[in-house]
């Protein structure tokens, strides 16, 4: 194992760097896009069910299908990393838009009413009251999106762009377990680190949840 | 009869929930356990159907120790009603009520027919039978809970805060129906509440427990109101216990004065108003409580309560100073 690592560390690092980039850029874009969409699902209640259903359908499209389908739609080259980024962004939005809507809907109606009674306007109330209270739910969704993005990136290796997934295809072609094991370990570790980072962020920005019963 | 014989319950961790409790719950009567939170009232109740087993001591039903009996078979003979009713959300109202008879081996059809009758008994029409619990109001759910507990016609019923999850108006209605039902059925009932007013209203016997599961006093509601055993009980039954105690005495012994010209009657002899034009503000019969008479005398603009016979005809007057004298004598007699 150590000879494999020392002989290939450059390839491994490049793959890891690409993996991080491919997985996390969609998380950031997806989060930014999902916030207003999720809010619309709450602001206009008739939109909620269509929104949830659309998200469900989008999320159920297999990643490999989406990876190979997007170049046809976007006109991108099949080897372009953009396909992976767009595909994972779609998944992130599908997951988070619903989570944002559910999070906002879970805010105690009495809290919203008392904020309104104190004279908050809609936008200010959203930013000052509803979003912070919904944050634990939203961040839980963000954890799921981040972790699944990280594991999905590798599937991209089947179309030639897949970060650590390239270690899998290489190992498979050579019938050689070491690169596959290294790839799995790095991918799981990356997911674990990102997950922990979001948990840490959550503790930092929602200190009140630590004192609530049953909070994570 | 349910007997607690030197019962102790110590929870793992060392807190004593029930401390050497010995008492008897009379057959066919309602016994209400009441006390502040942490007094072990629910623990005591749950030891009767072995939801909790005592650390030491015995609980007996009609002389038989519950400890020796099969838990499930024992519980099927004991009705169980809890706060929020605990209805099965996945079963219709009818099937909720039919649960215990079916556990006891009745056919589905038999159990459902009987359940339909019970729904009516607790004041729910047949249209509720096919609904699910989520489609009912809190008060309706609680009625179903009572019907479900009554379904196998158990001689003993346990009720843990059965009416505390509904609003006061609904609770009032449920209280009335509980008293009506219990008058018909005569079950041996053990009930838990944190509300002393409810205990006094519904209980034939009231058991007051204090923190740490110690018995503070057991007695009829009137005994507790008139002769609290100590400061704790006096405090717990409340400041206006003197007034509330009047609820348990009827106006039968109350002397009345003959009618005067001042009271205007209709042709049948029923009171209409005072000649000054003031309203009478209501009337009482011999069977009514002294509390009602007191209330009438206090609120009457002329300070006189009007007594009527069974047909509503006025037959006597009670001025408030006569009432005060009577209350003083009553007190001296106790």
């Amino acid at each position, binding site marked *: 194992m150590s000879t494999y690592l020392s002989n290939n560390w450059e390839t491994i690092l490049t793959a890891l760097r690409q993996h991080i980039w491919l997985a996390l850029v969609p998380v950031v874009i997806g989060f930014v896009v999902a916030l207003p969409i999720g809010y619309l699902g709450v602001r206009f209640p008739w939109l909620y069910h269509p929104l949830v259903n659309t998200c469900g359908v989008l999320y159920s499209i*297999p990643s490999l299908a989406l990876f190979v389908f997007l170049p046809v739609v976007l006109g991108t080259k099949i080897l372009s990393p953009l396909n992976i980024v767009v595909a994972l962004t779609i998944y992130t939005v599908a997951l988070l838009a619903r989570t944002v809507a559910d999070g906002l809907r879970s805010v105690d109606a009495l809290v919203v009413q008392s904020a309104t009674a104190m004279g908050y306007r809609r936008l200010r109330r959203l930013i000052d009251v509803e979003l912070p209270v919904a944050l634990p739910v939203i961040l839980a969704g963000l954890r799921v999106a981040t972790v699944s993005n990280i594991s999905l990136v590798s599937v991209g290796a089947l179309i030639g762009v897949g970060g650590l997934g390239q270690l899998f295809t290489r190992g498979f072609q050579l019938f050689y377990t070491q690169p596959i094991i290294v790839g799995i370990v790095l991918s799981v570790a990356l997911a674990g680190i990102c997950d922990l980072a979001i948990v840490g962020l959550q503790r930092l920005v929602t200190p009140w949840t630590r004192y609530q019963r049953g909070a994570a | 009869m349910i007997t607690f014989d030197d019962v102790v319950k110590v929870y793992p961790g060392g807190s004593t929930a029930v401390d050497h409790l010995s008492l008897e719950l009379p057959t066919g009567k309602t016994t209400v356990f009441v006390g502040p939170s942490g007094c072990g009232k629910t623990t005591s109740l749950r030891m009767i159907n072995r939801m909790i087993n005592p650390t030491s001591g015995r609980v007996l039903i009609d002389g038989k120790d519950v400890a020796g009996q099969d838990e499930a078979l024992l519980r099927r003979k004991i009705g169980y009603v809890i706060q929020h009713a605990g209805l099965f959300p996945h079963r219709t109202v009818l099937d909720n009520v039919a649960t215990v008879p079916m556990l006891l081996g009745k056919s589905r059809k038999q159990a459902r027919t009987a359940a339909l009758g019970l729904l009516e008994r607790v004041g729910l029409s047949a249209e509720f039978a096919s609904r699910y619990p989520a489609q009912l109001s809190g008060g309706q759910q609680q009625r179903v809970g009572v019907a479900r*507990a009554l379904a196998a016609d158990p001689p003993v019923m346990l009720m843990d805060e059965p009416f505390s999850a509904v609003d006061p108006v609904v609770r009032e209605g449920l209280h009335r129906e509980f008293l009506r039902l219990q008058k018909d059925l005569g079950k041996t009932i053990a009930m838990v509440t944190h509300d002393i007013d409810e205990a006094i209203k519904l209980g034939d016997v009231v058991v007051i427990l204090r923190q740490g599961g110690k018995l503070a006093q057991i007695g009829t509601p009137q005994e507790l109101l008139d002769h609290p055993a100590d400061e704790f009980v006096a405090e717990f039954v409340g400041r206006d216990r003197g007034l509330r105690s009047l609820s348990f005495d009827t106006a039968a012994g109350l002397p009345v004065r003959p009618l005067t010209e001042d009271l205007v009657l209709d042709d049948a002899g029923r009171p209409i108003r005072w000649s000054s034009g003031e309203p009478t503000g209501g009337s009482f019969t011999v069977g009514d409580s002294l509390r009602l008479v007191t209330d009438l005398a206090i609120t009457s603009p002329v300070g006189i309560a009007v007594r009527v016979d069974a047909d509503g005809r006025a037959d006597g007057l009670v001025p408030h100073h006569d009432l005060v004298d009577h209350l003083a004598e009553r007190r001296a007699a106790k």
Partner: protein
Amino acid sequence: MNLSYLFDAAHWSLTDDGSIPQLILSHVWYVVLALIIGTIIALPVGLYIGHTGRGSFLAINAGNAGRSLPTLGLLMLMVTLLGLGLTPVLIALTVLVIPPILTSAYAGMRTLDHRVVDAARGMGMRPSQVLFKVELPMALPVMMSGFRSAALQVVATATVAAAVGLNGLGRLLIDGLAVNDYSRVLAGAIVVAVLAVVLDLILALAQRWIVSPGLR
């Protein structure tokens, strides 16, 4: 977009090897096998942990751990270790469906209204009656949602089986890519997405049928 492959009647023959119906059939076969084996393993464990509360840590983290495992890596590792064939693929797919089923069985049992369970015991139900007549029916909606997400995941991932030489709808994607036949790739992407949506619809209907209306 070129849909000629999808709409060519020759590709819809029921008997030809590699025809679309044949590939759907093999795809569904992998999915069903993995779901059955996964359920047999995960359901009792999840129910036990949820019922007793023992091992909660395992159940709570199984979901996240499962999501972070890169399935392509797992699949290729199994093939390199065990050789080509159905077994390594089934192992990888089963590992994938276990976490959501286990976690949702656990969550379903944990989030039960304890008052209802208390009432059931108090009415004289035996422990097995409490489990089968009260706890399981009440936990069913949550358990079904876990099963549905497991099913979606495995439909998506079964496409990857083609990368290690098996059949399934992944064949259209992988083979199409290999020979630059984008019409075939598109056909594969569409059919597998439709299959995912249809399967979810069937499961949603099944859920309506087996979950008591009182729990909706």
